[in-house]
């Protein structure tokens, strides 16, 4: 799993690939006094730094800097600031900042990274503001700052009993130098009053009231609307366009030829936008465009069926590229007491965010203003600047609330498109909106993959060797985005002989990161296979994992990503087994099949350890129902907002159930995506949701890490393993199908 993190010239951490395991590190957050969207500019009274402003009535406004995609970050990051600022959370107001990493530091929703990246920096921002208030109060009262304390937005002098709101010192404090962030003292954990408390989402009241919050709700004076027709075949071009009929339609403002903005398409992938006075008019008019599309030189005939045939043939052979070689796996398999082999596969998937891709752009006087639902606005700024040939500094990016991310909005193709369209109608804001079919057919898909796995057991039932030939997509020997497999893929570090290898097929499909990228597929593959290995070893999967993990210890870290701790893994496995009463009603191997089954899965990703138990019912010949799920997770020493943490885990688990059971699969036919809407790309509905998802957090000494993703992967193999328990059927292909 590849996460490339580097310091850029300004010293800010930037993340150029977002799929990977989280690293715990300190991001550098500058402390300028620019609070761009907090209702006050630089130097305004009470602006203590880029994140904190205190009004004369002691109302404290805290800037929320990251894209909010439903992960709760607009609530959680300000909680960290408020904690160290010692503010009264009930009185805090939250304001979304602009996208500007020079002012706010990294602003990315991806890789479950926001927690480890911001755990210390956001607290230091709050602590620095508090220190400035204390220094100002000390000067005002003629005492030493060290004699003063704070309490819920007030300064208190214990000796004299004096007490005054922060606001009394805010103007003076704003003129003081900011303390050194590296040394500003932080609270001891025992003094936390906000971290670790259950806080509802700061936008919940506005959502429930139907207030305009989302990118699609952007409404500006004189705004026009765009619908888009993108080459149905990936990488296709326009050979002829007749837009005369469309231009004659009342309300149509412009017809704009452009590129789809997908970097994966290497400059091809043409598109046409229709701009009109309403989106309905634009979308209707688009259907009257006469466009002749030409497929790309190669790939116009690509199809799922041929990918599957090629993959099957490739799997029979040896991998073209080595990923991991430890010991002599071939010899170890020859000498093994028992050998297990199996093939697993999974399909392309779309993200299907419920808010379709959209972006509003205004181009005027050589400058661009964007209202962009983007998980990676800094990357979008770069891509947009390049596409328009303007300086990145000429672009202002607003960050509306986002109706679901799941990795789709790490790609900024729709942002580039909106900017290109805006350039053609200068001076008028234009809102580009995909319809659902555009959204399903022009995504960056979770790549399909195929595996041939073999494991050898020694006489004691321990894994002596494991091999995997992984076939997916890539070019020139390099995997496509999100089509990579880590050489550390569990249990590589715990087995004496390992050979992981890969072979990549070419594809024109744009690929991308889907929530818990690569992990969502690898967990299914490896934890499903290890369940088979456990059966051969005469034990169950939790017991095989305990044997394999051995003594608690930290394994050598991968080149990129977090080190694996066998003790933390063991604790979540034991915790979920206790909580669920494992093995409970599990069928004995070879025992009678009742239609009820129980399965287990464990996975480590994004620095989080998750073990899950699933109870299922095989309802009839085609239907598998998940009845209940138990989850135990270790994401470090603190769960910052326990309410949202449970929401994230439950949502991740049900998202995983959808991947396993809802029938999700993207097919390519003649170089284009076949599915078009929720009829043929189904999302999970309430009647297929389990009755309960029981969540237990197992704290550890590690610094806190993220929760947007790591609870998702284990549930998928746990379901497949439960189906075997219930029905004796080993399902090795996603989506899981009984018939």
């Amino acid at each position, binding site marked *: 799993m590849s996460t490339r993190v580097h310091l850029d010239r300004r010293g800010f951490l930037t993340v150029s690939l977002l799929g990977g395991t989280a690293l715990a590190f300190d991001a550098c957050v500058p402390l300028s006094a620019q609070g761009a969207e907090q209702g006050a500019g630089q130097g305004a009274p009470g602006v203590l730094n880029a994140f904190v402003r205190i009004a004369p009535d002691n109302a404290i406004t805290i800037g929320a800097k990251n894209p*909010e*995609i*439903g*992960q*709760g970050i607009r609530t959680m990051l300000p909680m960290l600031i408020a904690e160290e600022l010692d503010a009264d959370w009930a009185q805090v107001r939250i304001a979304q900042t602009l996208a500007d990493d020079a002012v706010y530091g990294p602003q990315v929703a991806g890789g479950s990274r926001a927690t480890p990246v911001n755990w210390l920096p956001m607290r230091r921002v709050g602590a620095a503001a508090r220190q400035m208030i204390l220094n100002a109060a000390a000067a005002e009262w003629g005492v030493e700052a060290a004699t003063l304390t704070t309490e819920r937005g007030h300064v208190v002098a214990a000796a004299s009993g004096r007490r005054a709101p922060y606001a009394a010192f805010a103007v003076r404090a704003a003129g003081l130098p900011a303390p050194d962030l590296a040394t500003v003292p932080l609270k001891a954990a025992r003094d936390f009053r906000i971290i670790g408390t259950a806080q*509802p*989402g700061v*936008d*919940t*009241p506005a*959502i*429930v*009231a*139907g*207030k*305009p919050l*989302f990118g*699609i*709700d952007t*409404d500006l004076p004189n705004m026009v609307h765009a619908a888009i027709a993108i080459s149905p075949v990936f990488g296709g071009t326009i050979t002829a366009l007749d837009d005369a009929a469309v231009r004659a339609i009342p309300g149509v403002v412009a017809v704009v030829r452009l590129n789809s903005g997908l970097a994966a398409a290497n400059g091809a992938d043409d598109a046409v936008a229709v701009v009109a006075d*309403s*989106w*309905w*008019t634009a979308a*209707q008019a688009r259907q009257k465009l006469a466009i002749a599309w030409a497929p790309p030189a190669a790939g116009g005939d690509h199809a799922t069926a041929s990918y599957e045939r090629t993959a099957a043939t490739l799997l029979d052979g040896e991998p073209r590229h080595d990923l991991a070689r430890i010991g002599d796996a071939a010899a170890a398999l020859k000498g093994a007491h028992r050998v297990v082999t199996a093939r697993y596969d999974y399909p392309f998937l779309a993200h*299907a*965010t*419920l*808010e*379709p891709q959209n972006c509003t752009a205004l181009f005027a006087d050589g400058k661009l203003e964007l209202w962009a639902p983007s998980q990676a606005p800094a990357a979008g700024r770069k891509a947009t600047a390049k596409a328009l040939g303007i300086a990145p500094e000429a672009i202002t990016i607003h960050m509306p*609330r*986002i*109706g*679901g*991310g*799941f990795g789709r909005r790490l790609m900024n193709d729709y942002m580039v498109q909106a900017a290109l369209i805006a350039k053609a109608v200068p001076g008028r804001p234009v809102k580009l*909106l995909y*319809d*659902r079919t555009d959204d399903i057919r022009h995504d960056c898909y979770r790549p399909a993959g195929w595996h041939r796995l073999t494991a050898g057991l020694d006489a004691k039932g321990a894994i002596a060797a494991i091999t995997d030939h992984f076939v997916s997509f890539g070019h020139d020997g390099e995997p496509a985005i999100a089509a990579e497999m880590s050489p550390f893929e569990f249990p590589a570090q715990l087995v004496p002989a390992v050979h992981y290898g890969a072979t990549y097929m070419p594809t024109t499909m744009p690929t991308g990161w889907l929530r818990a990228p690569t992990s969502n597929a690898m967990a299914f593959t490896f934890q499903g296979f290890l369940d088979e290995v456990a059966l051969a070893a005469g034990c169950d999967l939790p017991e095989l994992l305990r044997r394999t993990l051995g003594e608690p210890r930290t394994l050598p870290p991968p080149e990129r990503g977090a080190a694996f701790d066998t003790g933390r893994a063991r604790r979540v496995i034991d915790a979920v087994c206790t909580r669920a009463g494992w093995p409970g009603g599990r069928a004995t191997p070879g025992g009678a099949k009742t239609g009820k089954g129980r399965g287990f899965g464990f996975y480590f990703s994004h620095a989080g350890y998750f073990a899950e138990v699933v109870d299922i019912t095989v309802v009839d010949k085609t239907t598998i129902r998940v009845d209940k799920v138990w989850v135990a997770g270790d994401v470090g020493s603190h769960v910052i907002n326990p*309410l*949202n943490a449970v*929401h*994230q885990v*439950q*949502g991740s*688990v*049900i*998202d995983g159930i*959808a991947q396993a059971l809802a029938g999700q699969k993207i097919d390519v036919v003649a170089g284009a995506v076949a599915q078009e*809407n*929720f*009829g043929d790309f189904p*999302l*999970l*509905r*309430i*009647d297929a*949701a389990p009755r*309960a*998802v029981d969540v237990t957090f197992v704290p550890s000494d590690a610094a806190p890490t993220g929760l947007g993703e790591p609870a998702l992967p284990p549930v998928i193999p746990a379901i497949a393993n439960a189906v075997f328990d219930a029905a004796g059927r080993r399902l090795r292909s996603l989506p899981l199908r009984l018939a």
Partner: protein
Amino acid sequence: MPEQGVPMSVTITVNGMPRTIDVDPDKPLLWALREDMKLPGTKFGCGAGLCGACTVMMDGDAIRACQTPVASIAGKAVTTIEHVATTPVGRRVSEAWAALDVPQCGYCQAGQIMSATALLTQIPAPTPEQIDGAMSGNICRCATYLRIRAAIAKAAAGAAA
């Protein structure tokens, strides 16, 4: 006889107020609400009646605004998310939604609240099966389903109390 593409004057009652707009008679109620009446709380998800994000209430029934040509409901009364909390059932539902912090991304929640309000208007104390049945037309991509069930039960209990 309304002609496609030719604007006509349509009057519907929206959130208690009669509204007259000049509009393509085929334009879906969803886009008339969002664009012509500046009520963006009702959301666009699929345009095909499959996801429920555009659910509004018409004369007490939950309908999919994306599948409802605006001319087809001339003279009817429509309630949207912006106004639903002014009804007793809608207020209980909205309060339960906030109390349980149901939303994650929040995009589908207007449609969920409208479907839940229609359900509780017609069946004040639904069984779990009736809740799942009535809500299965509303997709939540974040999968807040456990809290949706709990919030409906809470709102129903609030009516009984």
